[in-house]
């Protein structure tokens, strides 16, 4: 019952961001897909192929029709991560409600778990569901000229996981007692490194491994800082 009360409270606090992210992605991502379909790509004639010519190797590359949708997913995921991290870990500091929150008849760790759980659910519900919807729509037989690769679906989840990693970095920055001009922003810099490393992977398993290891590094520090922090 106590945990539920905490969950409800956290969910209620994060709800506006959850909804904004879901609606924004649905509209922008869906619109991007719609525009791609209407543009007729890739069945527009590429004028750089002419008889007897050597074809530049990069002209054969093709982005999937969901590429612009993917860009929107990435940015909205990052923004959602920042927003949730700020809401859950910066705002209580500025509004001085940590004291009220911590003095609950419940374990400190449970308070933290409620926040993390709600954030995870937020990503899964708001972005994950919409991504599932968009991918399903794109996979319908007569929507796109050809079906999207199954791998794209997993890549979408990796982009969503990047947003969650940003959330963890923001959370750690919020909990850190360091000053802004010193190491307070280092968790966010570390998140940048994780994202840069993930983006350069071509194997899905390696990408997941990088994200998981990076997230675990951040998570361990979040737990330790939360349990030992002064409020």
């Amino acid at each position, binding site marked *: *019952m*106590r945990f*539920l*009360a905490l969950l*409800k*409270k956290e969910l*209620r*606090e994060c709800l506006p961001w959850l909804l904004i992210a879901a609606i924004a992605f649905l509209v922008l991502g869906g619109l991007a897909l719609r525009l791609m379909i209407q543009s007729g790509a890739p069945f527009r004639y590429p004028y750089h192929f002419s008889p007897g010519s050597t074809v530049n190797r990069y002209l054969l590359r093709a982005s999937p029709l969901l590429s612009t949708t993917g860009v929107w997913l990435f940015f909205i995921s990052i923004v959602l991560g920042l927003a949730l991290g700020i809401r859950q870990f910066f705002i209580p500091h500025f*509004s*001085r*409600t*940590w*004291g*009220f929150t*911590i*003095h*609950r*008849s*419940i*374990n400190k760790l449970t308070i933290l778990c409620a926040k993390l759980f709600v954030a995870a659910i937020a990503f899964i519900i708001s972005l994950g569901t919409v991504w599932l919807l968009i991918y399903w729509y794109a996979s319908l037989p007569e929507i796109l000229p050809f079906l999207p690769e199954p791998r794209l679906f997993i890549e979408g989840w990796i982009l969503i996981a990047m947003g969650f990693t940003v959330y963890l970095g923001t959370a750690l920055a919020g909990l850190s007692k360091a000053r802004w001009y010193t190491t307070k922003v280092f968790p966010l810099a570390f998140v940048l490194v994780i994202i840069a490393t993930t983006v350069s992977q071509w194997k899905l398993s390696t990408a997941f491994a990088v994200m998981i290891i990076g997230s675990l590094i951040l998570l361990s520090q979040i737990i330790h800082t939360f349990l*030992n922090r*002064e*409020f």
Partner: protein
Amino acid sequence: MTETVLETYGLTKYYGGTLALDNMDLKIPRGCICGFVGRNAAGKTTAIKLMLGLLKPTAGSAKLLGCDSQNLTPAIRQRIGYVTEGHHLFHWMSIASLEKFQRAFFPKQWDDRFFSEMIEYFELPKNKKIKHLSHGQRAQVSLALALAPNPELLVMDDPTLGLDTAIRRQFLEGMIQLIMQQGRTVFFSSHILGDVERVSDRIVVIDKGVIRADCSLEQFREAVKKVKLSFSDCPPAQLDIEGLLHCRRSEKELELILIGTDDEKIKQWADSAAAIKYSIVKMNLEDQFIEFTAPPNHKKLFQWEKN
């Protein structure tokens, strides 16, 4: 032997290189209403936060209801009510949702009727959001939230800060309600000595992180005295009276702040010092506190000149 609900042993806290709390030893028995007073930056909030485990001590320890403050279990926290300084609550919640939230943590202890009565008494609409309440109204909600679970120990950090006189009176009456229930202990910090005087039976005075007084209110009231003496000539240079805290001199007058000195001894000294007149000035608790915590050679900021 009376059970101790709140105790500290050598509790010390440094913020950087600044000593905020210096070796605080305290024992508050059950059923006591203890006023914790001190000037700004004396260390009151620091002490309270250390007791509740919100801060880590540099040295020493504290125990609440027999449990180490750094490891307060959920069961112990359930028995402690806490009113934070400034009454910061979740501004997006309404009073009703805040009640629901708080109730979830006290499933067996929560007194629905008491909370509703308190809210009615303070004339607060339950569906109003916290962010739309005034500071005083938030303080009332805060108190109601803290009292409704029937806590054994109520810890309040400057609960009447920023409240007007009427609201403060209501707040104190709410507190008295709780006090009237047996076995309840209240530990609160305040700047308003009048409030402390109204409700407390024990006073703890802290000054620059050091406990200066830890006694019953009566003992404090009796101990701190201001004596005004008039002389025909210059007052004596040497003041060898027992219990002298500090003094103020003018041409032919002397003002002494004495701690724990008998009236009889004051009279004897006045006679021996050849004072032509002396009087023991009646002080309220506020005046006593100011004099007790005034630094040595303290000068008044404003000197009124008589025309």
